Protein backbone atom coordinates (compact mmCIF):
# COMPACT_ATOMS: atom_id res chain seq x y z
CA UNK A 1 0.00 0.00 0.00
CA UNK A 2 1.20 3.44 -0.84
CA UNK A 3 0.99 4.77 2.66
CA UNK A 4 3.03 1.93 4.07
CA UNK A 5 5.93 2.68 1.81
CA UNK A 6 5.84 6.18 3.00
CA UNK A 7 5.89 5.15 6.63
CA UNK A 8 8.79 2.82 6.02
CA UNK A 9 10.94 5.38 4.33
CA UNK A 10 10.00 7.77 7.06
CA UNK A 11 11.28 5.44 9.70
CA UNK A 12 14.52 4.88 7.84
CA UNK A 13 15.43 8.49 7.49
CA UNK A 14 13.86 9.37 10.80
CA UNK A 15 16.15 11.43 12.95
CA UNK A 16 17.27 8.71 15.32
CA UNK A 17 20.90 9.73 15.46
CA UNK A 18 21.16 10.20 19.14
CA UNK A 19 18.55 8.46 21.19
CA UNK A 20 19.39 10.26 24.42
CA UNK A 21 19.08 13.69 22.88
CA UNK A 22 15.60 13.01 21.63
CA UNK A 23 14.43 12.21 25.11
CA UNK A 24 15.86 15.26 26.80
CA UNK A 25 14.83 17.90 24.28
CA UNK A 26 11.16 17.45 23.51
CA UNK A 27 10.82 20.56 21.37
CA UNK A 28 14.17 20.32 19.67
CA UNK A 29 15.08 18.49 16.52
CA UNK A 30 17.87 15.94 16.76
CA UNK A 31 21.39 16.77 15.70
CA UNK A 32 22.00 16.16 12.05
CA UNK A 33 18.53 17.14 10.87
CA UNK A 34 18.58 20.11 8.56
CA UNK A 35 17.04 23.09 10.34
CA UNK A 36 15.59 24.31 7.06
CA UNK A 37 13.60 21.07 6.63
CA UNK A 38 12.12 21.33 10.11
CA UNK A 39 11.31 24.99 9.53
CA UNK A 40 9.47 24.34 6.28
CA UNK A 41 7.48 21.65 8.04
CA UNK A 42 6.39 24.16 10.66
CA UNK A 43 5.72 26.89 8.13
CA UNK A 44 3.57 24.51 6.12
CA UNK A 45 0.96 24.30 8.88
CA UNK A 46 1.41 27.67 10.58
CA UNK A 47 -1.58 29.97 10.12
CA UNK A 48 -0.04 33.11 11.54
CA UNK A 49 3.37 34.60 10.77
CA UNK A 50 5.94 32.96 13.09
CA UNK A 51 8.58 34.96 14.92
CA UNK A 52 12.20 33.88 14.61
CA UNK A 53 12.35 33.38 18.36
CA UNK A 54 9.28 31.16 18.31
CA UNK A 55 10.67 29.11 15.46
CA UNK A 56 14.03 28.79 17.21
CA UNK A 57 12.25 27.46 20.30
CA UNK A 58 10.27 25.08 18.13
CA UNK A 59 13.30 23.52 16.51
CA UNK A 60 15.51 23.92 19.57
CA UNK A 61 18.31 25.72 17.75
CA UNK A 62 19.98 29.12 18.20
CA UNK A 63 18.20 32.12 16.70
CA UNK A 64 21.17 32.80 14.42
CA UNK A 65 20.94 29.32 12.88
CA UNK A 66 17.21 29.75 12.31
CA UNK A 67 17.72 33.17 10.74
CA UNK A 68 20.30 31.74 8.35
CA UNK A 69 18.07 28.78 7.49
CA UNK A 70 15.14 31.13 6.77
CA UNK A 71 17.30 33.21 4.43
CA UNK A 72 18.37 30.02 2.68
CA UNK A 73 14.74 28.96 2.31
CA UNK A 74 13.76 32.32 0.82
CA UNK A 75 16.49 31.96 -1.78
CA UNK A 76 15.61 28.31 -2.34
CA UNK A 77 11.93 29.06 -3.03
CA UNK A 78 12.94 32.00 -5.21
CA UNK A 79 14.83 29.59 -7.43
CA UNK A 80 18.26 30.83 -6.48
CA UNK A 81 19.47 27.50 -5.16
CA UNK A 82 19.29 25.56 -8.39
CA UNK A 83 15.66 24.51 -8.05
CA UNK A 84 12.60 26.04 -9.71
CA UNK A 85 11.12 29.37 -8.67
CA UNK A 86 8.27 28.01 -6.57
CA UNK A 87 4.59 28.94 -6.83
CA UNK A 88 4.86 30.01 -3.20
CA UNK A 89 7.29 32.21 -1.35
CA UNK A 90 8.50 32.77 2.19
CA UNK A 91 7.96 36.33 3.39
CA UNK A 92 8.57 38.23 6.57
CA UNK A 93 5.40 40.12 7.39
CA UNK A 94 4.69 42.02 10.59
CA UNK A 95 7.66 40.57 12.42
CA UNK A 96 6.97 36.97 11.47
CA UNK A 97 7.54 34.45 8.71
CA UNK A 98 4.81 32.81 6.71
CA UNK A 99 4.37 30.98 3.40
CA UNK A 100 2.36 32.93 0.83
CA UNK A 101 1.26 32.41 -2.74
CA UNK A 102 3.83 34.05 -5.00
CA UNK A 103 2.44 37.26 -6.49
CA UNK A 104 2.51 36.19 -10.11
CA UNK A 105 0.14 33.32 -9.33
CA UNK A 106 -2.47 35.52 -7.70
CA UNK A 107 -4.75 35.35 -10.70
CA UNK A 108 -4.67 31.56 -10.92
CA UNK A 109 -5.40 31.28 -7.22
CA UNK A 110 -8.11 33.90 -7.34
CA UNK A 111 -9.84 32.09 -10.20
CA UNK A 112 -9.62 28.91 -8.22
CA UNK A 113 -11.03 30.55 -5.09
CA UNK A 114 -13.90 31.94 -7.14
CA UNK A 115 -14.91 28.53 -8.39
CA UNK A 116 -14.65 27.21 -4.83
CA UNK A 117 -16.81 29.87 -3.17
CA UNK A 118 -20.01 30.61 -5.04
CA UNK A 119 -21.85 33.85 -4.38
CA UNK A 120 -24.72 32.09 -2.65
CA UNK A 121 -24.63 29.98 0.46
CA UNK A 122 -25.57 26.33 0.08
CA UNK A 123 -28.59 24.89 1.85
CA UNK A 124 -26.24 23.01 4.20
CA UNK A 125 -24.42 26.23 5.04
CA UNK A 126 -27.69 28.09 5.69
CA UNK A 127 -29.00 25.37 7.97
CA UNK A 128 -25.75 25.26 9.91
CA UNK A 129 -25.81 29.04 10.19
CA UNK A 130 -29.35 28.85 11.54
CA UNK A 131 -28.28 26.31 14.15
CA UNK A 132 -25.44 28.55 15.26
CA UNK A 133 -27.69 31.62 15.32
CA UNK A 134 -30.19 30.01 17.68
CA UNK A 135 -27.81 28.00 19.85
CA UNK A 136 -24.76 30.23 20.11
CA UNK A 137 -22.15 29.91 21.39
CA UNK A 138 -21.91 26.36 20.14
CA UNK A 139 -19.06 23.97 19.36
CA UNK A 140 -18.61 22.20 16.05
CA UNK A 141 -19.25 18.85 17.72
CA UNK A 142 -22.60 20.06 19.03
CA UNK A 143 -23.59 21.40 15.62
CA UNK A 144 -22.60 18.12 14.02
CA UNK A 145 -24.73 16.14 16.43
CA UNK A 146 -27.76 18.33 15.73
CA UNK A 147 -27.28 18.19 11.98
CA UNK A 148 -26.12 14.53 12.03
CA UNK A 149 -23.44 15.32 9.46
CA UNK A 150 -19.89 16.53 9.59
CA UNK A 151 -19.91 20.33 9.45
CA UNK A 152 -16.19 21.15 9.35
CA UNK A 153 -16.05 22.52 5.84
CA UNK A 154 -19.34 24.37 6.18
CA UNK A 155 -18.12 26.08 9.36
CA UNK A 156 -14.96 27.08 7.50
CA UNK A 157 -17.07 28.60 4.75
CA UNK A 158 -19.18 30.56 7.23
CA UNK A 159 -16.04 31.77 9.00
CA UNK A 160 -14.55 32.80 5.67
CA UNK A 161 -17.73 34.70 4.85
CA UNK A 162 -17.53 36.53 8.14
CA UNK A 163 -21.02 35.37 9.15
CA UNK A 164 -19.76 33.58 12.24
CA UNK A 165 -16.75 34.04 14.47
CA UNK A 166 -14.86 32.10 17.09
CA UNK A 167 -16.43 33.23 20.37
CA UNK A 168 -14.20 31.37 22.81
CA UNK A 169 -12.31 28.14 23.33
CA UNK A 170 -13.44 25.84 26.09
CA UNK A 171 -10.47 25.60 28.43
CA UNK A 172 -11.24 22.01 29.37
CA UNK A 173 -12.10 20.38 26.08
CA UNK A 174 -10.26 22.79 23.80
CA UNK A 175 -13.42 22.95 21.68
CA UNK A 176 -13.89 26.24 19.82
CA UNK A 177 -17.35 27.77 20.27
CA UNK A 178 -18.86 29.80 17.47
CA UNK A 179 -21.20 32.79 17.47
CA UNK A 180 -22.79 34.84 14.72
CA UNK A 181 -21.53 38.29 13.73
CA UNK A 182 -23.00 41.71 13.15
CA UNK A 183 -22.77 40.93 9.44
CA UNK A 184 -25.43 38.26 9.81
CA UNK A 185 -27.72 40.71 11.61
CA UNK A 186 -27.20 43.17 8.77
CA UNK A 187 -27.99 40.54 6.16
CA UNK A 188 -31.13 39.53 8.03
CA UNK A 189 -32.10 43.18 8.52
CA UNK A 190 -32.36 43.01 12.29
CA UNK A 191 -30.62 44.87 15.08
CA UNK A 192 -30.10 42.15 17.61
CA UNK A 193 -30.42 38.42 18.05
CA UNK A 194 -33.55 39.08 20.14
CA UNK A 195 -35.33 39.86 16.91
CA UNK A 196 -34.89 36.34 15.57
CA UNK A 197 -38.36 34.81 15.26
CA UNK A 198 -38.98 32.46 18.20
CA UNK A 199 -38.88 28.76 17.37
CA UNK A 200 -38.90 27.88 21.04
CA UNK A 201 -41.23 24.89 21.45
CA UNK A 202 -39.20 22.56 19.31
CA UNK A 203 -35.92 24.06 20.28
CA UNK A 204 -36.50 23.55 23.98
CA UNK A 205 -37.37 19.91 23.54
CA UNK A 206 -34.68 19.23 21.09
CA UNK A 207 -31.89 21.14 22.72
CA UNK A 208 -31.87 19.37 26.04
CA UNK A 209 -30.05 16.35 24.78
CA UNK A 210 -27.40 18.35 23.03
CA UNK A 211 -25.92 20.23 25.92
CA UNK A 212 -24.03 17.21 27.08
CA UNK A 213 -22.57 16.44 23.71
Amino acid at each position, binding site marked *: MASETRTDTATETAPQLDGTDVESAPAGIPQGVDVARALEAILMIADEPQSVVGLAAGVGRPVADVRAALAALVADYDGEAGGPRRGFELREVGGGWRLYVRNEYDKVVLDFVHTQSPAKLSQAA*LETLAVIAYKQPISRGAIAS*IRAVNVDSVVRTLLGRGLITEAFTDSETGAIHYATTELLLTQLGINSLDE*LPPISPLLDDGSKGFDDV
Partner: protein
Amino acid sequence: MARSPEPEAPATPTDVAATDAPAGFRVHLASFDGPFDLLLSLISKRELDITEIALSAVTDEFLTYLRELDGPDELEEASEFLVVAVTLLDWKIASLLPQGELVDAEDVALLEARDLLFARLLQYRAFKQSSGWFASRLEAEAGRHARSVRLEDRFRERTPELRWTTSLDDFAALALLAFTPREIPTVGLDHLHAPLISIREQAAHVVSLLRRGDPVTFRQLIAGADQKGVIVARFLALLELYRHSAVGFEQLEPLGELTVRWTAENWSDENLVNLGADYGQ
Protein backbone atom coordinates in the same frame (compact mmCIF):
# COMPACT_ATOMS: atom_id res chain seq x y z
CA MET B 1 -6.97 -31.92 22.80
CA ALA B 2 -5.96 -28.60 21.37
CA ARG B 3 -4.17 -26.92 24.17
CA SER B 4 -3.01 -23.49 23.34
CA PRO B 5 0.75 -23.39 23.57
CA GLU B 6 1.12 -19.61 23.64
CA PRO B 7 -1.61 -17.09 24.30
CA GLU B 8 0.10 -14.66 21.96
CA ALA B 9 0.30 -17.18 19.16
CA PRO B 10 -1.36 -15.77 16.06
CA ALA B 11 -4.91 -16.97 16.05
CA THR B 12 -5.27 -17.64 12.36
CA PRO B 13 -3.31 -16.78 9.26
CA THR B 14 -6.17 -14.51 8.29
CA ASP B 15 -5.54 -12.15 11.17
CA VAL B 16 -5.40 -8.69 9.66
CA ALA B 17 -4.15 -6.98 12.74
CA ALA B 18 -3.18 -8.02 16.19
CA THR B 19 -6.45 -7.16 17.83
CA ASP B 20 -6.05 -9.72 20.57
CA ALA B 21 -5.12 -7.87 23.65
CA PRO B 22 -2.92 -10.15 25.69
CA ALA B 23 -4.80 -9.08 28.81
CA GLY B 24 -8.18 -10.15 27.44
CA PHE B 25 -10.54 -12.77 28.69
CA ARG B 26 -9.05 -16.23 29.10
CA VAL B 27 -10.89 -19.52 29.22
CA HIS B 28 -9.77 -22.44 31.33
CA LEU B 29 -11.50 -25.64 30.39
CA ALA B 30 -10.59 -29.28 30.38
CA SER B 31 -10.18 -29.28 26.63
CA PHE B 32 -8.85 -25.79 26.22
CA ASP B 33 -6.83 -23.18 28.01
CA GLY B 34 -6.20 -19.83 26.40
CA PRO B 35 -7.66 -16.51 25.34
CA PHE B 36 -11.29 -16.45 24.28
CA ASP B 37 -10.38 -15.21 20.85
CA LEU B 38 -8.14 -18.18 20.29
CA LEU B 39 -10.95 -20.48 21.30
CA LEU B 40 -13.05 -18.96 18.56
CA SER B 41 -10.34 -19.26 15.99
CA LEU B 42 -9.69 -22.92 16.86
CA ILE B 43 -13.36 -23.69 16.56
CA SER B 44 -13.56 -21.86 13.29
CA LYS B 45 -10.64 -23.90 12.00
CA ARG B 46 -12.49 -27.00 13.26
CA GLU B 47 -9.52 -28.06 15.33
CA LEU B 48 -11.67 -28.06 18.39
CA ASP B 49 -15.07 -29.65 18.44
CA ILE B 50 -17.70 -27.22 19.61
CA THR B 51 -19.58 -30.04 21.28
CA GLU B 52 -16.68 -30.50 23.68
CA ILE B 53 -16.99 -27.00 25.04
CA ALA B 54 -19.36 -26.48 27.90
CA LEU B 55 -20.78 -23.07 27.18
CA SER B 56 -22.04 -22.68 30.71
CA ALA B 57 -18.50 -23.17 31.97
CA VAL B 58 -17.24 -20.51 29.58
CA THR B 59 -19.98 -18.18 30.73
CA ASP B 60 -19.18 -18.74 34.38
CA GLU B 61 -15.54 -17.97 33.75
CA PHE B 62 -16.48 -14.89 31.81
CA LEU B 63 -18.70 -13.56 34.57
CA THR B 64 -15.88 -14.05 37.04
CA TYR B 65 -13.57 -12.20 34.70
CA LEU B 66 -16.06 -9.35 34.29
CA ARG B 67 -16.30 -8.81 38.02
CA GLU B 68 -12.66 -7.78 38.03
CA LEU B 69 -13.21 -5.24 35.28
CA ASP B 70 -14.46 -1.69 35.58
CA GLY B 71 -16.21 0.91 33.53
CA PRO B 72 -16.67 1.03 29.78
CA ASP B 73 -14.28 -1.88 29.21
CA GLU B 74 -16.66 -4.09 31.06
CA LEU B 75 -19.64 -3.06 28.99
CA GLU B 76 -17.73 -3.45 25.76
CA GLU B 77 -16.38 -6.87 26.62
CA ALA B 78 -19.71 -8.01 27.94
CA SER B 79 -21.58 -7.06 24.79
CA GLU B 80 -18.92 -8.62 22.65
CA PHE B 81 -19.11 -11.80 24.64
CA LEU B 82 -22.87 -11.89 24.19
CA VAL B 83 -22.56 -11.62 20.44
CA VAL B 84 -20.05 -14.42 20.29
CA ALA B 85 -21.80 -16.56 22.85
CA VAL B 86 -25.09 -16.39 21.01
CA THR B 87 -23.37 -17.42 17.83
CA LEU B 88 -21.57 -20.22 19.58
CA LEU B 89 -24.77 -21.35 21.18
CA ASP B 90 -26.61 -21.43 17.87
CA TRP B 91 -23.76 -23.29 16.38
CA LYS B 92 -23.54 -25.75 19.19
CA ILE B 93 -27.23 -26.54 18.95
CA ALA B 94 -26.76 -27.25 15.29
CA SER B 95 -23.74 -29.44 16.06
CA LEU B 96 -25.62 -31.49 18.58
CA LEU B 97 -28.47 -32.27 16.27
CA PRO B 98 -28.36 -35.79 14.88
CA GLN B 99 -26.33 -36.14 11.74
CA GLY B 100 -27.54 -39.33 10.09
CA GLU B 101 -27.25 -40.03 6.45
CA LEU B 102 -28.43 -37.26 4.25
CA VAL B 103 -31.67 -38.86 3.40
CA ASP B 104 -34.30 -36.25 3.84
CA ALA B 105 -34.45 -32.58 3.08
CA GLU B 106 -34.82 -31.65 6.70
CA ASP B 107 -31.39 -33.02 7.56
CA VAL B 108 -29.89 -31.15 4.68
CA ALA B 109 -31.53 -27.99 5.91
CA LEU B 110 -30.06 -28.52 9.35
CA LEU B 111 -26.59 -28.97 7.94
CA GLU B 112 -27.04 -25.87 5.86
CA ALA B 113 -28.14 -23.99 8.93
CA ARG B 114 -24.99 -25.13 10.67
CA ASP B 115 -22.81 -23.93 7.83
CA LEU B 116 -24.63 -20.65 7.87
CA LEU B 117 -23.86 -20.20 11.54
CA PHE B 118 -20.29 -21.19 10.90
CA ALA B 119 -20.13 -18.58 8.17
CA ARG B 120 -21.66 -16.01 10.46
CA LEU B 121 -19.01 -16.67 13.06
CA LEU B 122 -16.27 -16.26 10.47
CA GLN B 123 -17.88 -13.10 9.17
CA TYR B 124 -18.11 -11.63 12.62
CA ARG B 125 -14.46 -12.43 13.23
CA ALA B 126 -13.36 -11.00 9.91
CA PHE B 127 -14.94 -7.62 10.58
CA LYS B 128 -13.69 -7.61 14.13
CA GLN B 129 -10.18 -8.20 12.88
CA SER B 130 -10.40 -5.57 10.19
CA SER B 131 -11.60 -3.05 12.76
CA GLY B 132 -8.08 -3.28 14.16
CA TRP B 133 -6.73 -2.03 10.86
CA PHE B 134 -9.20 0.87 10.95
CA ALA B 135 -8.17 1.78 14.47
CA SER B 136 -4.47 1.83 13.69
CA ARG B 137 -4.91 3.75 10.44
CA LEU B 138 -7.17 6.34 12.06
CA GLU B 139 -4.69 6.80 14.85
CA ALA B 140 -1.71 7.09 12.53
CA GLU B 141 -3.46 9.60 10.32
CA ALA B 142 -4.68 11.67 13.27
CA GLY B 143 -1.02 12.40 13.96
CA ARG B 144 -0.44 13.74 10.45
CA HIS B 145 -0.65 17.44 9.69
CA ALA B 146 -2.17 18.75 6.49
CA ARG B 147 -1.81 22.33 5.38
CA SER B 148 -5.02 24.03 6.40
CA VAL B 149 -4.45 27.73 6.85
CA ARG B 150 -6.59 30.81 6.70
CA LEU B 151 -7.03 32.19 3.20
CA GLU B 152 -4.72 35.13 2.64
CA ASP B 153 -6.58 38.41 3.03
CA ARG B 154 -5.85 39.51 -0.53
CA PHE B 155 -7.78 36.50 -1.78
CA ARG B 156 -10.50 36.64 0.80
CA GLU B 157 -11.25 40.26 0.03
CA ARG B 158 -11.73 39.46 -3.61
CA THR B 159 -14.02 36.48 -3.31
CA PRO B 160 -17.39 37.14 -4.90
CA GLU B 161 -19.72 39.24 -2.79
CA LEU B 162 -22.19 37.11 -0.90
CA ARG B 163 -25.66 37.34 -2.35
CA TRP B 164 -27.98 37.01 0.61
CA THR B 165 -31.48 35.99 -0.43
CA THR B 166 -32.85 34.48 2.77
CA SER B 167 -35.56 36.42 4.58
CA LEU B 168 -35.81 36.48 8.34
CA ASP B 169 -38.81 34.15 8.28
CA ASP B 170 -37.11 31.75 5.90
CA PHE B 171 -34.11 31.79 8.20
CA ALA B 172 -36.28 30.83 11.16
CA ALA B 173 -37.91 28.10 9.09
CA LEU B 174 -34.47 26.73 8.24
CA ALA B 175 -33.59 26.69 11.92
CA LEU B 176 -36.78 24.82 12.68
CA LEU B 177 -35.93 22.31 9.99
CA ALA B 178 -32.42 21.87 11.30
CA PHE B 179 -33.56 21.38 14.88
CA THR B 180 -36.29 18.90 14.08
CA PRO B 181 -34.92 15.64 15.43
CA ARG B 182 -34.00 13.41 12.57
CA GLU B 183 -35.81 10.18 13.15
CA ILE B 184 -33.80 7.32 11.87
CA PRO B 185 -36.63 5.21 10.48
CA THR B 186 -36.70 1.70 11.79
CA VAL B 187 -37.06 -1.26 9.52
CA GLY B 188 -39.67 -3.80 10.48
CA LEU B 189 -38.37 -7.33 10.62
CA ASP B 190 -41.79 -8.92 10.18
CA HIS B 191 -41.22 -9.68 6.55
CA LEU B 192 -38.29 -11.88 7.48
CA HIS B 193 -40.60 -14.45 8.99
CA ALA B 194 -42.93 -14.83 6.06
CA PRO B 195 -45.01 -16.78 5.52
CA LEU B 196 -46.58 -16.08 8.87
CA ILE B 197 -48.28 -18.96 10.58
CA SER B 198 -50.99 -17.99 13.00
CA ILE B 199 -51.07 -19.80 16.30
CA ARG B 200 -54.72 -18.82 16.56
CA GLU B 201 -55.55 -20.53 13.29
CA GLN B 202 -53.65 -23.64 14.27
CA ALA B 203 -55.37 -23.62 17.65
CA ALA B 204 -58.72 -23.58 15.90
CA HIS B 205 -57.65 -26.63 13.92
CA VAL B 206 -56.46 -28.41 17.07
CA VAL B 207 -59.65 -27.55 18.94
CA SER B 208 -61.82 -28.83 16.15
CA LEU B 209 -60.03 -32.19 16.22
CA LEU B 210 -60.09 -32.52 20.02
CA ARG B 211 -63.69 -31.44 20.59
CA ARG B 212 -64.92 -34.59 18.93
CA GLY B 213 -64.17 -36.15 22.34
CA ASP B 214 -61.70 -38.94 21.55
CA PRO B 215 -58.10 -38.62 22.79
CA VAL B 216 -55.75 -37.73 20.00
CA THR B 217 -51.98 -38.27 19.82
CA PHE B 218 -49.71 -35.37 18.99
CA ARG B 219 -48.55 -37.33 15.97
CA GLN B 220 -52.13 -37.30 14.70
CA LEU B 221 -52.48 -33.62 15.45
CA ILE B 222 -49.59 -32.72 13.21
CA ALA B 223 -50.40 -35.19 10.49
CA GLY B 224 -50.39 -33.49 7.15
CA ALA B 225 -48.47 -30.47 8.38
CA ASP B 226 -46.05 -29.73 5.59
CA GLN B 227 -44.13 -26.93 7.29
CA LYS B 228 -42.02 -26.97 10.40
CA GLY B 229 -43.67 -23.72 11.41
CA VAL B 230 -47.11 -25.34 11.43
CA ILE B 231 -45.90 -28.07 13.76
CA VAL B 232 -44.39 -25.47 16.07
CA ALA B 233 -47.56 -23.40 15.99
CA ARG B 234 -49.75 -26.41 16.83
CA PHE B 235 -47.45 -27.30 19.71
CA LEU B 236 -47.61 -23.73 21.02
CA ALA B 237 -51.36 -23.77 20.57
CA LEU B 238 -51.54 -26.87 22.75
CA LEU B 239 -49.52 -25.16 25.48
CA GLU B 240 -51.86 -22.20 25.32
CA LEU B 241 -54.91 -24.42 25.52
CA TYR B 242 -53.34 -26.18 28.51
CA ARG B 243 -52.97 -22.80 30.19
CA HIS B 244 -56.69 -22.32 29.68
CA SER B 245 -57.29 -25.76 31.19
CA ALA B 246 -58.86 -26.84 27.93
CA VAL B 247 -56.65 -29.88 27.36
CA GLY B 248 -54.85 -32.54 29.37
CA PHE B 249 -51.74 -34.52 28.47
CA GLU B 250 -50.81 -38.09 28.94
CA GLN B 251 -47.35 -39.49 28.30
CA LEU B 252 -46.45 -42.92 29.66
CA GLU B 253 -42.68 -42.69 29.24
CA PRO B 254 -40.20 -39.92 28.49
CA LEU B 255 -40.11 -39.13 24.77
CA GLY B 256 -42.96 -41.59 24.32
CA GLU B 257 -46.24 -41.04 22.57
CA LEU B 258 -48.01 -37.87 23.71
CA THR B 259 -51.73 -38.16 24.00
CA VAL B 260 -53.97 -35.11 24.23
CA ARG B 261 -57.43 -35.09 25.68
CA TRP B 262 -60.08 -32.35 25.56
CA THR B 263 -60.90 -31.36 29.18
CA ALA B 264 -62.63 -28.00 28.83
CA GLU B 265 -65.90 -27.70 30.71
CA ASN B 266 -67.24 -24.50 29.26
CA TRP B 267 -65.29 -23.56 26.17
CA SER B 268 -66.39 -20.82 23.88
CA ASP B 269 -64.75 -20.08 20.59
CA GLU B 270 -64.31 -16.53 21.83
CA ASN B 271 -61.43 -17.91 23.88
CA LEU B 272 -59.63 -18.46 20.64
CA VAL B 273 -59.52 -14.73 19.96
CA ASN B 274 -56.86 -13.98 22.54
CA LEU B 275 -54.99 -17.20 22.07
CA GLY B 276 -51.39 -16.73 21.00
CA ALA B 277 -51.42 -13.04 21.87
CA ASP B 278 -48.20 -13.58 23.82
CA TYR B 279 -46.52 -14.63 20.63
CA GLY B 280 -47.46 -11.46 18.80
CA GLN B 281 -50.35 -12.98 16.89
